[in-house]
């Protein structure tokens, strides 16, 4: 999944798009090592168990990894997948939402 995500991030660096992670590793070192080894430049919420909070994955009832959410520019959940749906499905959905976001923002400018 990482190589495709890396290419998405670089391809869409000028688009109204951001990739964010929720990292379920049980320690910070794993996250840092993975970021380093896999060339992960995007941000991830650190999500391991700690006494002062409930992990995001628990609140969001995540039952398998990866679980993916696609949220549109207005903050609405538009897609979610348990497991990787494949590059094509993912790219297609992302492109549609970016096109939608650009359309809305150009309309706003037009007003």
């Amino acid at each position, binding site marked *: 999944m990482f190589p495709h995500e890396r290419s998405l991030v670089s391809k869409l660096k000028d688009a109204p798009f951001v990739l964010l992670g929720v990292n379920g590793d049980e320690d910070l070192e794993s996250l840092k090592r993975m970021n380093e080894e896999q060339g992960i430049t995007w941000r991830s919420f650190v999500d391991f168990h700690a006494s002062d909070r409930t992990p995001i994955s628990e*609140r969001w009832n995540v039952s398998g*990894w990866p679980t993916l959410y696609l949220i549109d520019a207005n903050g609405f*959940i538009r897609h979610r997948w348990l497991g990787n749906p494949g590059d094509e499905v993912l790219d297609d959905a992302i492109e549609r939402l970016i096109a939608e976001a650009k359309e809305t923002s150009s309309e706003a400018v037009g007003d």
Partner: protein
Amino acid sequence: MRRFVGVAVSFFGISFSLVGQEQGLEQIRSDYHEYLYSSYEQGGMPEADRLVDYIVAAFEFADSSEVAEQSVAALHLVMGISSMHILTKEEDTLVPEWKDAVDRLTLEYVNEPSLAMVIHGIDFVPPALEAARDRFLEVVTAETKNSVVRAALCLEHAKRIMRKDMTGGCDEEEEAALPGLLERLASEFGSNSAPQGQGDFATLASRMKYEWENLRVGCKAPDLEGVDGDGVPFKLSDYAGKVIFLDFWAHW
């Protein structure tokens, strides 16, 4: 060795000790696993003919065991062996064996608490088994009087609807049924322990309710806040106005 144990169990029947019976089933299970690993190691696939031997031994064990829980475990093993084979070979060779095990469970063990483990274990089955699986769940739902089994049925029913909803395939009737199922999970079975160390059913039901009410397609995404790997705090809402691809990941 495996054959010997199988024969011993059925031969001594009633007088055979519980310890001996457990060893009998464990022996079949470990022989099966050993065969599985050795065939993978040799780069091949397990052969149906060999798998049938383990299935026959497990059936014999189920018939001869005097302990219902052990019989259910043996039939569960038959289901595991056959569905694994159907899945990897993508052929229907062992479908009758799977159905046979399920028939025996519905005939004799609908009120046995350990049937809950079987119910939790068949959320994913190969397509060739889906219709039989659904029928099995229907029959058990109609007939069981055991609360542990009913709790398992209720949870798996709710999970099935939520999973279908995630892939866009849940119909109106299922959508309408879900809140009632979650309510039942919490009120009727709340203090039962949920499978796979997920706490009790009440906790699990409240998480599922949160997901259903806040995280379905079309919902406004709840805000998230936390820290990144460098300890810098940030929020989901920091990125408002952008398309957000949120990836729950881990290195494993």
